[in-house]
C-alpha cells in the first residue's frame, strides 16, 4: 500500500548550523535535523534506540552521529546503528527549495 506523506516546513536552510544537530518538534514527532559538511540536510528521529539519547546533541562526523550518552554510532542517512551495536532509528525525507527546508512525514 502506498503511504501518503505530508510536507512540513521547518525553517531556512541557512539558519541551520553546520555539522551540528537541531531539535525540531512537530506535533508528536521529535526530529534531529542535521546539515552535513556537504551541505545536505537530513532528518532522523531524535531518540537513540539504545537508551533514548538526544541525537541532536551528538557529535556529527560525515554521515554519522555519535550519541551523546553512550557513543553509539548512527547513520544520519538511513538511521542504521553501526557495528558492534545493533538497531535502527526512523529516518525522514527532506526537501529543500529556495533555502526552505521541508520534512516529509507520514499522514
Amino acid at each position, binding site marked *: 500500500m502506498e503511504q501518503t506523506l505530508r510536507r512540513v516546513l521547518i525553517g531556512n536552510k541557512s539558519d541551520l548550523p553546520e555539522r551540528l544537530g537541531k531539535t525540531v*518538534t512537530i506535533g508528536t514527532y521529535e526530529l534531529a535535523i542535521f546539515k552535513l559538511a556537504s551541505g545536505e540536510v537530513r532528518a532522523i528521529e531524535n531518540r537513540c534506540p539504545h537508551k533514548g539519547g538526544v541525537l541532536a*546533541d551528538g*557529535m556529527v562526523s560525515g554521515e554519522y552521529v555519535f550519541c*551523546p*550518552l553512550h557513543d553509539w554510532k548512527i547513520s544520519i542517512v538511513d538511521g542504521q546503528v553501526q557495528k*558492534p551495536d545493533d538497531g535502527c532509528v526512523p529516518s525522514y525525507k527532506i526537501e529543500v527549495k529556495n533555502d526552505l527546508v521541508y520534512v516529509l512525514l507520514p499522514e
Partner: protein
Amino acid sequence: MPKQKIVLIGNGMAGMRAIEEIKKLRPDDFDITVFGTEPYPNYNRIQLSKVLQGDTEVKDITLNEWSWYEENDILLYPGETVVKVDKKSQVVFTDKGREANYDYLILATGSNPFMLPLPGVDKEGVTAFRDIKDCEKMIEYSKKYKKAAVIGGGLLGLEAARGLLNLGMEVDVIHIADYLMERQLDREAGHMLQTELEKQGMNFLLEKQTVEIIGRNRVTGLRFSNGDRIKADLVVMAVGIKPNVSLALETDLEVNRGIVVNDFMETDTPNIFAVGECAEHNQMVYGLVAPLYEQGKALAKRICKLEDKGYKGSILSTQLKVSGVDVFSSGNIKEYDSMKTIKLKDDWRGTYKKITIENDHITGAVLFGDTREGNKLLSFIKKGVQIEEYLALGEQTESNESLVAEMPDDELICGCNGVTKGTIVQAIQTQGLSSVEQVKGCTNASRSCGTCKSLVSELLEYTLGDEYSETQQETICGCTTLSKDEVIAEIKEKGLTHTREVMNVLGWSTEEGCSKCRPALNYYLGMINPIDYKDERESRFVNERLHANIQNNGTYSVVPRMYGGVTNSEDLRKIADVADKYEVGMIKLTGGQRIDLLGVQKEDLPKIWADLGMASGHAYAKSVRTVKTCVGADFCRFGTQDSVGMGIQIERKFEGLNTPHKVKMGVSACPRNCAEGGVKDVGVVGLDGVWEIYVGGNGGVELRKAELLVKVKTQEEVLEYIGAFLQDYRENAKYLERTSAYVERVGINHIQEVLEDKQKRDALNQSMEIALSAVQEPWSEAIRNGTLLRDLYEKVKVSE
C-alpha cells in the same frame, strides 16, 4: 504476556556466554537474573595467568562491565550464592535470603580446584589458582616472601610458576609424572619444555609425591614420600579441578562426574540446564573455554526454541600461555600400536612437531617451539583430513609467505570463540576494521585466551595490504595509524591549524573523523597554539559544547562556580530564585562541595546563566573543575594554614584551563586531610610552615593514592609547582588520560626530575600563563552571541 524468566547460577565464562547467545537470538524475550558468588562482573578467567605474569591488570580482564548488565536489562547479584533450588515450584534461594522464580534455570557453577588431602593443606600460605582472590593472594605473598612451591606440572601449574618468577620469587615445581604436561605432550616435547623453562629460572622436582605441608600456622615447607624436604613460604596447588556439583546433588539432578546433560544441555529435569565445567556431556567434562562456548550456543538455541542439531562434543586443543615458550597440543597424542606418527625434531632451532595418524587420517598433533600451524592442524583434526592432503599442502607452501593466505575460509582462527577466517575477513572488509581491537569488538575473535591475536593481526595485514601497519602502536583511534606523539609532532612541524586539515594532510581514513579523534585533535591543536587556535565546538562532546552536563533524559545540569567551596547569602538567594523560576528537578550538593541544579531544559540554560550572573563551574568539562577545601586555620582547632584562601587562589588561577581530562583538587590545613587530597589529581596539605603537594590521585573507578610531588614553604611556590605540573600534564598526557594514569605511566620520579629544574619549571609556567590568557568565560558569551544562542541552545517547534 509477562516475559519468561531465566535464572543463571554462576556468573562465569560459560554461563554468561550462554546468556550472550540468548540475547543475540532473542534480545527482549526474557527477564534474566544472574547470581554469582564472586563479587565482580564476569571476567576472563583464562587471563588470570597473564595478570599473575604482569602483562595485564585485573581491571582489564572484565568481559562485561557492570554497565553492560544494566544496558542489557540483566539483573546481576554479585557476591551472592544460590544455596537451594526448589524444582517443584521453580524457585531458587540465596545465602542472602533472596528468592527468584524461574521458567528456565541454568547451572553454570564451574569447578572447584582440587586440593590434595594432605596434612597441613589448611595452613596459611596454601592456595589454589582459580580466581581473582587467589591471584591477589599470590601477588600479596610475593611482596613478603621469597620461596614458592607449585604442586602440579600441568598447564595451570606452569603458568602459575611463570607468574611467581615474574613476581620475583624462587619457584620449585613439583610434579608426580616423569615429564611435564604429560596429558598434552609426549616425553620428547615434555623434556624440551622443561629445558626451556629451566633456562627461565624454574626448578623442577619430577616424580615426587608430596605427603605433608609443614609449618606451624603458616606453611614453611613440603615433605615428600622419599623423606626429602624443601622450604616454601607459599604453596600453590594446581593438580586439577573437579566439577562443582554440590548444588546439583542437593537438587537431586542426575550427577555422575559432572551434571549429566544431553546434546541440548538439558539435565534430567525439564527446564533445568547445565553448561560449562560443571556439566558432563557424553561422559566428558571439559575444562577449557572453547567447548563451553559451543555448549552455550546449543543451550541458547534450545531455550529460544530454534531448530538445532545440538552439541556433539569437542576436540580439544591447548596452548601454554608462558612467554618465550610456544606449545600446542590437540586431539589424541598418545601412541598405540595401530597408529603411525610423523615426528620432526629440529634440535638446532629447538622445534618439534608430532602428528598422529590413524587409518590415514590426522587425529592429533603436538607442536613445540613453533606453533603457527596449530589452528590449521586443529581444523584438520576436526575434519579428519587425510594425511596425504596435509602433506601435499605442506610441499606447496614450503616457502611459506603467509600462513593465513592459504587457509580456507571455514578454518578457525579463534578456537575459543569459534570464529572462522571467513567471518573475520568479511568483517574487516564490510565494517572497515583496521585493528585487532576492532576485530575483537566486531567478531569476538581473540576475546578469550588471546593466543590467536597474531593470526588476527596477520589476517588484517593480508586483507588490508599496505594500509595495515604491523607495528600497530596505540593510535589515536581507528581513523588513523598514527600515535598521539606522531600527530603532535606533525601538527608542530607542518603548522597545521584545523582538525580537518590534520585529517586531510595526515591521511585519515575517514573524512571527518570520529567521536574519539575529533575531541583529541581539537585539544592538541589548542594546547599547541592556545592564542590563535579557534576552538571547534562541533568537535566537542556535548557537555563541553553547551557548557552544561547532559543527563540521561536529555536535560542538563548547571553548577554555579563557588571558589574554594565558599559561598554567601546573596549567591544562595540567587541560586534559590533561579531554581524556583526554572523549576529545576533537583538541587544537590556535589562531591566537590558545589551546588548542582539538575533537570534544566537546554533552552533555559542561557537564561539561567543570565539570571545567576555567575560563571558556571566547568563541573563537566575536561578542565580544572573544583578545588575542595577544608575548614582551615581560621576556624578549625587543628588547622595550621589558610587552606580556604589557598584553595580559592588555585581555583581562580586555573579556572577554565583545558586539560586532557578532568582535574580535581583539594586543599587541607593539616594531616587529617579533610579535603581528601590523597585521591585528587592535585592535593595540597598545609602543615606547620610547609605545604605538601600530592599528585596523581583518583577517587573514581580506578582508585589511586596520590604521590608526594614536593614540599614547599610559601603559597607562591604552591602555585608555581601546580602550574608546572599541570602544564607538563597538558603537554605530555594523551587526551582522556587522567593524571593518575599519566603519573603511573611516566613515573613520579620522572615528573619530580623535570620540576626540580628551576629553568624547566619556569618554562612550563610561562606556557601555562599563555594558555590561561586565552581562557574565555563561555557563559556570558552564550548569552551575548545571537548565532551561538540559536545554533546551540534553541529548539524549533513547528505548530500544526
